[in-house]
């Protein structure tokens, strides 16, 4: 029978541990209004991205010059821009670009990071050091500036933008994988398995990867808002996805030129970015407390 003494009880602060991750997740969100709000915002953006062609009230690319610069009304919720296009439809179309570009580039970066991280962890020392040096160097480029440089060299396009994102995101993921690989490479458990004849490759696929894939996916999904922001930012500067793509950054850029006469355009361009970043951040905050047991203690 464990008997908590007075001093020990003073040190005890947590409630009983959550039974399972998913159950804990839902329970946590129910008690955390901000996390719930975050989840709703994220789902809203995802929903728009998935159903964009069907929920857009107008064609986002259709130019109707006579209807330019209409202020927001019941007909055009976010008004129209300098070419008479419905801003609300463009915002919804932008969600497709935002999520599409971010998810696909993060996925590619994850894949590349996986390979590079494994090379760094399992390969010879010099390779590890070289890769680390390259990663650190890439880290030293302020993000936007790296983007601008690449765009200067290769010209603005969707591919260039995705390459920029991949270049920026890969080092981070590679480092994570490398750390995990190094940690398990030398563990006795792995040595034992290898002593039993398992090859390095098998060891990797069956033993190491399944353990780290979960946390890494969560970390990667929390990168989505920053990638969306980067894409929007570069497009705003004219260096991202070229027109007529209705990126949120493009809406901001076009709206900025007419900020005095038609302020609703920039407001409309900023709103989805705010929703997305706030949504992911609130959700991530909520979940982070859940995932990190150390933070669960109520001091």
């Amino acid at each position, binding site marked *: 029978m464990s008997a908590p003494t007075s001093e020990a009880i003073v040190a005890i602060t947590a409630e009983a541990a959550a039974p399972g991750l998913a159950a804990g997740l839902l329970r946590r969100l129910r008690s955390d209004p901000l996390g719930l709000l975050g989840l709703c915002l994220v789902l809203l953006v995802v929903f728009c991205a998935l159903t964009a062609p069907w929920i857009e009230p107008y064609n986002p690319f259709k130019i109707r010059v006579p209807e330019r610069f209409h202020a927001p009304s019941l007909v055009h919720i976010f008004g129209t821009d300098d070419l008479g296009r419905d801003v609300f439809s463009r915002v919804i179309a932008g969600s497709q670009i935002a999520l599409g570009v971010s998810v696909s580039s993060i996925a590619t970066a994850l894949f590349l990071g996986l390979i590079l991280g494994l090379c760094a962890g399992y390969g010879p020392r010099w390779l590890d050091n070289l890769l680390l040096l390259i990663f650190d*160097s890439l880290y030293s480029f302020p993000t936007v500036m790296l983007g601008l440089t690449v765009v200067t060299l290769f010209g603005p396009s969707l591919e260039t933008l995705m390459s920029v994102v991949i270049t920026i995101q890969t080092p981070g993921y590679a480092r994570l994988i490398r750390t995990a690989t190094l940690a398990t490479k030398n563990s006795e458990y792995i040595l034992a398995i290898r002593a039993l004849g398992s090859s390095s490759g098998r060891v990797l696929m069956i033993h190491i990867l399944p353990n780290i894939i979960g946390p890494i996916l969560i970390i990667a999904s929390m990168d989505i808002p920053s990638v969306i922001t980067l894409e929007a930012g570069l497009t705003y500067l004219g260096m991202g996805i070229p027109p007529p793509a209705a990126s949120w950054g493009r809406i901001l850029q076009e709206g900025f030129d007419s900020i005095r006469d038609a302020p609703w355009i920039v*407001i409309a361009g900023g709103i989805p970015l705010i929703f997305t970043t706030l949504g992911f951040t609130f959700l991530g905050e909520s979940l982070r407390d859940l995932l990190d047991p150390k933070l669960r203690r109520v*001091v």
Partner: protein
Amino acid sequence: MLTYTLQRIALSILICLTSMGLLFAALHAIPGDPASIMLGSRATPEMRQRLNHELGLDKPILVQFVTQVGNIAQGDFGTDIFSKRSVGTEIMESLPKTLALIGAGLGWAVLIAIPLGCYSALKRGTWIDRLTGILSVGTISIPSFVVAIYALLLFSVQLGLFPVIGAGDDGDIRDQLWHLVLPSFAVGLGWVGYLARIVRASMLEVMNENHIRTARAFGLPEGKIVLHYALRIAILPTVTLLGLAIGGLLSSAVFAENIFSRPGIGKLIVDAADVRNYPVVQGAVLSTVALFAFAMPISDLLVAWLDPRVRANF
């Protein structure tokens, strides 16, 4: 201590070299010769040939790289394609202005974040603490250029409180400060929340440590304990962070300078990128890389100077 410092500096130099190498490789990796890229579509064959020769592009790759590194080490970043001025000069004109912007942005963020974080830690659970927490999380995530545009819209365009464009007249400090308000607000806003949270977490940890209890046991006034005993320790993680912050701050500055049409390295690089003025882009990027690469060891050394425990490790 000295060896550690030298090691960090050597690492920073190595990072700068590798960055140069990466850019160099990228420049040569793309189809078409570098001269065409630099000169853009307006290049005539004679211009290309002349630039080739000027840049030594007809020599073997390794020689080119070494020459370039040598040039950069002497401050020669090449020539602006359009203005024909030295890139180095243009950078030296712009960089201080950007540093002023970053300094102002970070400055006000720190001035607000530290008391805010401290107060939140001491008055945990009160509505101020909770409100600060929510606002912190909110402001951290919102993109700085959205903040900049909205601030411009509200305070300059709609309310007319602040100027829309430029950095103010030279020599008129008041005018320049006035022009600095909105841009530095946009640059710093994300950091207020972040730093406040870190100070708060740090203070909570420190206030729970034994030596604070000892200080109370000796009857020291609570004010002195908070300021000289606890806060002095709690702000150390912030100092480490400042070095890392330079990267994000420079990115934010690019947007702020563009949105508010302020001169600076951000405006320089965007304008250059717009017209594919590669030498300027390269020079600007490399100087910011150098800034960032050296900012981190500097902040680490600053922490070592402030925290005697770290000094003891050497």
